[in-house]
């Protein structure tokens, strides 16, 4: 018999002796960590990075308590500032559970990639962080606002981001998707924006709207309405509402709830001109009718449908022209779409894509299918 257990003993002995003699390199007690939940990045006037790190302060007084604590720290690089925070906190900042990175507009306009390299490179930071652009003066003040439901602002933002599917007012982008976009130059990266709103006299966070990048530079914003239109062109609408003001010529405002939406984007060549053909197919139900108009009966629904289609189409077109003409940023991934479906054409226009995009026309076709009217058959009104 081969006596394997000898080596078995060696390994056990080695392990024991190593624990005793050499100490433990990566061994760190969980209570020794300052768990960072979010970070806001600003730039001071002289090119110094200013971080506001939100750390979960865990107390135990009979039962566990979690409170936010803010550490502000400066440094020439992101890493330096992050490391310097250790001296202020006393414990090592632990980044793996950070949920949110808020970048100030100022930085984003210069070069956002510079500040993200650490997040990408470091093994401790995760790739599924939310990256947000602050629309306030500094990013730090957003993090230091007061959370409404959860005491820790980052966690609240995290919850808000995850509810995106039913809101569709900002793009659902995690850090790694942004990186993928950055690596792939043809598609302009986008990020959600965040600002503060006043509620009960206290400022709290609000996520909505889009920041548009070209390469690593921020070039502009889209408001929430335009964001939804943009998401339609990216086939990222999963839910949300369509609000029709003064629907179909009446005074009534109607809300349609989106069940399902599918956008089919194909490049076509029409009379020698390359165009993007976009077919949007939305299933909705009538969620609310603020008035007495009849949109439930068959002709009423037809009217409503035609109106909704027109409205959505207009919205998309307006947004498209805005993005194309003002920013010349291909946030919709049209270039990538052409590459996928017409690789030969793409090879020709690849180098001149910016100019080409500036002329690119949209052939839009929106189809709204009203699938139901929630639980009632008639509008709510006083009986006759």
């Amino acid at each position, binding site marked *: 018999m081969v006596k394997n257990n000898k080596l*078995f003993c060696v390994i056990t002995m080695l392990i024991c002796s190593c624990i005793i003699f050499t100490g433990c390199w990566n061994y760190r007690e969980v209570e020794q960590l300052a768990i960072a939940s979010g970070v806001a990045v600003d730039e001071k006037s002289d090119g110094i990075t200013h971080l506001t790190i939100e750390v979960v302060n865990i107390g135990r007084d009979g039962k566990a308590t979690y409170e936010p604590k803010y550490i502000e720290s400066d440094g020439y690089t992101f890493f330096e500032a992050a490391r310097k925070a250790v001296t202020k906190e006393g414990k090592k900042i632990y980044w793996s559970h950070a949920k949110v990175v808020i970048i100030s507009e100022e930085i984003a306009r210069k070069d956002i990639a510079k500040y993200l390299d650490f997040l990408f490179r470091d093994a401790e930071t995760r790739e599924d962080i939310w990256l947000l652009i602050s629309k306030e003066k500094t990013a730090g003040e957003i993090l230091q606002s007061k959370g409404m439901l959860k005491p820790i602002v980052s966690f609240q933002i995290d919850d808000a981001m995850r509810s995106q599917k039913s809101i569709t007012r900002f793009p659902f982008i995690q850090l790694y998707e942004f990186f993928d976009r950055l690596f792939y130059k043809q598609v302009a990266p986008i990020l959600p924006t965040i600002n503060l709103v006043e509620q009960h006299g206290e400022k709290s966070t609000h996520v909505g709207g889009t920041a548009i990048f070209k390469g690593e530079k921020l070039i502009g914003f889209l408001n929430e309405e335009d964001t939804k239109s943009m998401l339609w062109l990216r086939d990222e609408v999963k839910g949300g509402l369509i609000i029709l003001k003064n629907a179909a010529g009446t005074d009534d405002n109607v809300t349609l709830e989106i069940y399902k939406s599918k956008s089919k984007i194909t490049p076509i060549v029409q009379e020698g001109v390359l165009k993007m053909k976009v077919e949007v197919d939305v299933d909705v139900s009538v969620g609310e009718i603020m008035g007495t108009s009849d949109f439930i009966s068959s002709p009423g629904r037809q009217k409503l449908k035609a109106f909704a289609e027109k409205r959505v189409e207009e919205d998309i077109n307006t947004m498209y022209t805005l993005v194309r003409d003002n920013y010349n940023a291909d946030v919709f991934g049209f270039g990538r779409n052409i590459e996928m479906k017409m690789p030969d054409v793409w090879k020709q226009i690849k180098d001149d894509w910016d100019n080409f995009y500036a002329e690119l026309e949209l052939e839009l076709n929106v189809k709204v299918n009203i699938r139901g009217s929630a639980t009632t058959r008639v509008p709510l009104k006083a009986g006759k």
Partner: protein
Amino acid sequence: MNKEKISDIQSVKLMILFIFGSTLVIGTGGEAGRDAWISIFIAVILAIPIYLVYSRILSLFPGKDLFEILELNFGKFFGRIISLPFIWFAFHLGALVLRNFGEFISTVGLPETPKIVPIIIFGLLCIWGAKAGIETLAKCSEYFIIFVVFLLIVFSFLTIPIIDTDNIFPVLGSGYKEIMSGILSAFTFPFGEVVIFMMIFSSLRSKSSTSKVFISALLLSGVTIALLSVRNIMILGPDTIEAVYFPSYFAIGRVNIGNFLQRMEIAVTVVFILSGFIKIALCLTATARGVARVIGFDDYKILITPTGLLMVNLARNIYEDIVEMFDWAFKVWPYYAFPFQVILPVLIWIFIELKQRAKNKANTTEVTIDDGSSG
């Protein structure tokens, strides 16, 4: 020299784990960008004839390993001389995989721990495994492959929500030159490395099905690697794959199901450790066998510990850092490994085949060649 016997299925499983080795973590065929998987498929097809050559050499002399075959055919002195490059290759390969492992751990897992610590411990573990013998390794591989396949399947399913099928289009979009170099890279790493098995496969229980073992292991592992490559490309996109060291690790890291099933990269580590263990232990066995044969020992097991520790030393000193390692693995390795994997075996095969012909002509009445490569 040995009484150990392993069955066909066991050797297929050993070979599959061997091929998975470090490939699943580092990825292969990256030169071809989003067409890496095509390169891998073609490399698999190109590997078939080479594998037939390997198995033909083995099946001509059932129950003998490469070193014995070389001695038989080239004489004691020349046979041993020709054995040397193979021994070096096995030794070097083992050290490379060990180093890959060390870099992997220290990059993604334990950045503050000195690299040498995981390397030494893993090295000792592999020494233990190799000393336990190929039979034990084969049995271990039977259990490990269950875990490996289970993890691969489960985690490939879990990635379904985050895959983006658009990423692999357009198919064949990258140039032919890139695809060609992708093929070379995928062929030499990992499929050609199976040349190691020529040095340890005297233990096969059945004699006739050597080629079946080689080919089925190749196809199973080749298809798996290609599919996983497709998966990684779909999740990460070719550009990100190029930017990161360990694509599979990043790909699985993006899994997030219901905010609970997340951060499961450790699965990749498990696969790497299990298959890497088999790979290094086999390289070690091959080296020790070769050395034992060259210096004329009848028992190779006593040489495992010293060669294993030397392997650990080589692994420690071979590269400066991870950058150099990847540079070397992608730029130098294909050209470096090619002679060991293709040129030398093919030359040996031709020589042996001619010699056999001559012998057969000399005594036509006695035909004892076991024609295993026909299957």
